[in-house]
């Protein structure tokens, strides 16, 4: 594991910004934090190092939630970030967007937009069948799904139509373009998973 820092936030939407040289940059605006450290987990107490952070506002907490949060604000979302330096955090500590600065690379995790039951063309990029030459009902079909008597079955894991999207997805190494500490907003270059308003977990990049 590595030392990681992160924040929870909400996707605001995409827009474009210009660089100093006048090039257009597609960016996603994310409202991030402030987040509160709600629990610190260490090897000694839990077997691994992590911090649990809370974000959002929940007007009515049930008893277990209230007990867990203690003197922390009533947050709606709790997520854990595994990090080696968990012991350096204190419960109740506030984390805000100032942990990121323009030029940083971040990983953004969210729940992708649900596409429902999707065919193999949309889900896996299959080519589909020919449009002409006497084809009927074969335009978006999956094609062959295997051999004949040997092996006499369809292999497991074969790509086929099924549910697509609405899954936890992480986009790696997005560049932070802008940070606004006052408004708790950042802009990252590129697209992030999920719909506008969706919950996002933004952490510093792990593979860079």
């Amino acid at each position: 594991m590595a030392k990681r820092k992160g924040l929870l936030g909400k996707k605001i939407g995409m827009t474009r910004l210009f660089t100093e040289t006048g090039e257009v940059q597609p960016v996603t605006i994310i409202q991030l934090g402030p987040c509160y450290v709600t629990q610190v987990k260490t090897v000694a107490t839990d077997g691994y190092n992590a911090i649990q952070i809370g974000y959002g506002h929940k007007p009515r907490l049930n008893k277990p939630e209230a007990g867990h949060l203690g003197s922390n604000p009533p947050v709606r979302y709790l997520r854990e970030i595994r990090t080696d330096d968990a012991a350096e955090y204190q419960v109740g500590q506030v984390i805000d967007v100032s942990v990121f600065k323009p030029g940083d690379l971040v990983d953004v995790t969210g729940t992708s937009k649900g596409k429902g039951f999707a065919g193999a063309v949309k889900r896996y990029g299959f080519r589909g069948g020919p449009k002409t030459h006497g084809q009927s009902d074969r335009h978006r079909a999956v094609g062959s799904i295997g051999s004949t008597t040997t092996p006499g079955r369809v292999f497991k894991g074969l790509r086929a139509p099924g549910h697509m999207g609405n899954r936890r997805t992480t986009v790696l190494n997005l560049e932070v373009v802008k940070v606004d500490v006052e408004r708790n907003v950042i802009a990252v270059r590129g697209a992030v998973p999920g719909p506008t308003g969706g919950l996002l977990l933004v952490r510093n990049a792990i593979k860079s």
Partner: protein
Amino acid sequence: MTQELLKVWDPQPNPNIPELHPGDTVRVHARIVEGDRERIQVFQGVVMRIRGGGANANFTVRRIAAHGIGVERTFLFNSPRIERVEVLRRAKVRRAQLYFLRKYRGKAARLKEDRSLFEDK
């Protein structure tokens, strides 16, 4: 609230771009970057359409280049590469998008001038 946050970094309107209307004959001074050299290129023509969209707002200018070839170029209102825009002439038009200009050439592609632009001054 969320919609406002989307506009946090929207640029201020370029003071060197006056209010434009479809049918305006304009001269756009655009900064062209070639390798490490920079120069200003002037593109003069008729504003054919104006599209909104906040940070993405743009306008398209049509001009007739050599050999009667129509050239359309779209500029982003917020691009720092637009040095300035001059309005030379305003025309009376009855549509927002002047796509019909593509069908006409020469004398037929003229637009009736709206004199009110210069009377104000």
